[in-house]
């Protein structure tokens, strides 16, 4: 079942949460709605679920407008950030809820309910916890119960609102890999909201990036990561260093750096900025053609990577990430002056909307 969102706009009072948002989720696809907080991603998900009404625009399931339809008739599975489990019901009853509230004619028999709840709890690997109360489970287990409960109504689409948002980092990583495997198994059209770029990059087939209520870029993870169409996307998907400057005569002059910029051959200068991801920067002890000197102020260990902070003369501090091998080869010491060369500088003309402040 595909989902189509056409020109949805939604305001809460004077705050516009969504401005003319359109997107599609193909049948069986797992799509991430990514964006900073306040970008409207949860509102959009709630509108698709029918828990919120759009001011304008429409939502289509499999080509049919579901606008006027009650959320109960949309046949969606919704997983909430804070699980929203029924705390006075056992895990079993939580999962069975969707079947038990069906109209009398469609309600499955007690054996059928038992069998299906058993199957679902097996699917989420919690079949041994059926008679516990939600309060007795860990966060990761609760979220899997919530997922089983959402799947119990045999939804046509699955909507997940920051499903791993309130879990700790380790459980989050485990659970998102598990969700990806589960999706590969059941192939249910799914849309999940997240503010964590890593999560979106790792799990999703496609990412829709939202900012201030608008779709900023929509594409497969590699495309967003490799070919960001705006500084915002670049900045949001990774740690970047910004070099402000201008472009003129086919070159970008960004502080100490000068690179070719054939898109602007005019003599008249335009404000621009160069962006270099923190792992796309080389450090050495000898000066080269292009680059600048900076002194090393801090070395931090981040697992396999080392995070370095450098202070160029008269400019903002730089963030650089080195693999352990490269760090060992160079062995820089805090206080030392190093030659900095951005390997892959992406230049964007400065837009009226400045990129997100880090």
């Amino acid at each position: 079942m595909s989902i189509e969102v056409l020109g949805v706009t939604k305001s809460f009072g004077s705050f516009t949460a969504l401005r003319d948002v359109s997107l599609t989720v193909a049948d069986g696809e797992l799509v991430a709605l990514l964006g900073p907080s306040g970008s409207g991603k949860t509102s959009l998900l709630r509108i698709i679920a029918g828990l919120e009404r759009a001011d304008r625009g429409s939502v289509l399931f499999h080509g049919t407008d579901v606008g006027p339809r009650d959320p109960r008739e949309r046949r969606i599975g919704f997983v909430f950030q804070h699980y929203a489990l029924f705390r006075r019901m056992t895990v079993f009853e939580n999962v069975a809820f969707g079947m038990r509230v069906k109209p009398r004619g469609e309600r499955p028999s007690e054996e059928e309910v038992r069998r299906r709840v058993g199957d679902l709890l097996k699917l989420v690997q919690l079949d041994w916890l059926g008679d516990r109360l939600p309060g007795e489970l860990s966060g990761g287990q609760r979220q899997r119960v919530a997922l089983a409960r959402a799947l119990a109504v045999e939804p046509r689409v699955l909507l997940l609102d920051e499903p791993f948002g309130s879990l700790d980092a380790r459980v989050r990583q485990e659970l998102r890999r598990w969700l990806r495997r589960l999706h590969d198994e059941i192939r249910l059209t799914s849309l999940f909201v997240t503010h964590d770029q890593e999560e979106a990059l790792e799990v999703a087939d496609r990412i829709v990036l939202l900012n201030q209520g608008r779709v900023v870029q929509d594409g497969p993870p590699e495309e967003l990561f490799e070919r960001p169409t705006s500084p915002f996307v670049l900045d949001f998907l990774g740690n970047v260093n910004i070099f402000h400057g201008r472009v003129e005569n086919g070159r970008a002059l960004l502080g100490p750096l000068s690179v070719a910029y054939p898109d602007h051959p005019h003599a008249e200068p335009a404000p621009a900025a160069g962006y270099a991801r923190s792992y796309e920067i080389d450090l050495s002890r000898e000066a080269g053609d292009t680059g600048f000197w900076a002194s090393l102020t801090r070395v931090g260990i981040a697992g396999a990577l080392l995070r370095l902070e450098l202070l160029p003369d008269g400019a903002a501090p730089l963030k650089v990430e080195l693999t352990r091998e490269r760090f060992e080869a160079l062995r820089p010491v805090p206080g030392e002056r190093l030659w900095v060369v951005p390997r892959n500088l992406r230049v964007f003309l400065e837009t009226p909307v400045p990129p997100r402040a880090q």
Partner: protein
Amino acid sequence: MKRPAVEPRILPGFGPALGFTLLWLSVVVLAPLAALVLSALRMPPAEIARIVAAPRVAASIRLTFGLALASAAVAALLGLLLAWVLVRHRLPGRRLLDALIDLPFALPTAVAGIALTTLYAPNGWLGRPLAALGVPVAFTPLGIGVALVFLGIPFAVRTLEPVLESLDPEVEDAATSLGATAGQTFRRVLFPELLPALATGFSLAFARGLGEYGSVVFISGNMPMRTEVAPLLIMTRLEQYDYAGATALAAVLLVASFLLLLAVNRLQAWGVGPAARG
């Protein structure tokens, strides 16, 4: 888990706090009650039974308990409705309404009684049309009920309000997304959450109604066998220097209400238990 009676504490002031609590409980609560129980115990049980079984006394006990129970139930339901409206809807003048809820707490009960009597008397604003419909309110058990509901509602509202506020609206959304109707959501999801608070509101309203005197004496008409409540009968007995009669009646009221409140308490503990961890 067994603990020693007094364990070394990190939090200071445990001793004074325990001492103060016990002192307060003893002087203000336990001493008068103990005096009542003691004087009742001095009477032979047969004597108590005889006094309580007298038709006028038995009628007043039945009336008091019946009305206190019924009006506490009505107050709990109306209180739930009011609390719901106050919490869930952003009404204009919500704060004013919220403050008005507490008024029955503050109003001298005699004032409330006179006001209600004036309103519901056969020639009052509400009493006249109601009497014309064949429903006299003042000077009937129904009138007492109205007064008790009026006094009981704030208890229900004030106990339910915080619970309603603490309920995560996502839980209702979850029920809706799973296909539950509004009724099913209320019955299966919300009501079990509200039950303990509802029970508290009910028992507070019940306890208040059981002992209520000031507002009832005006609206009830105090007709023996029909609209005479037990607290009034106790007063009457005292005025007649019939201390034995007053004591017996008071003791019966005390024991019965204690048992009832204990039962409600058990119900609450059972309801709160599993969710306290969630």
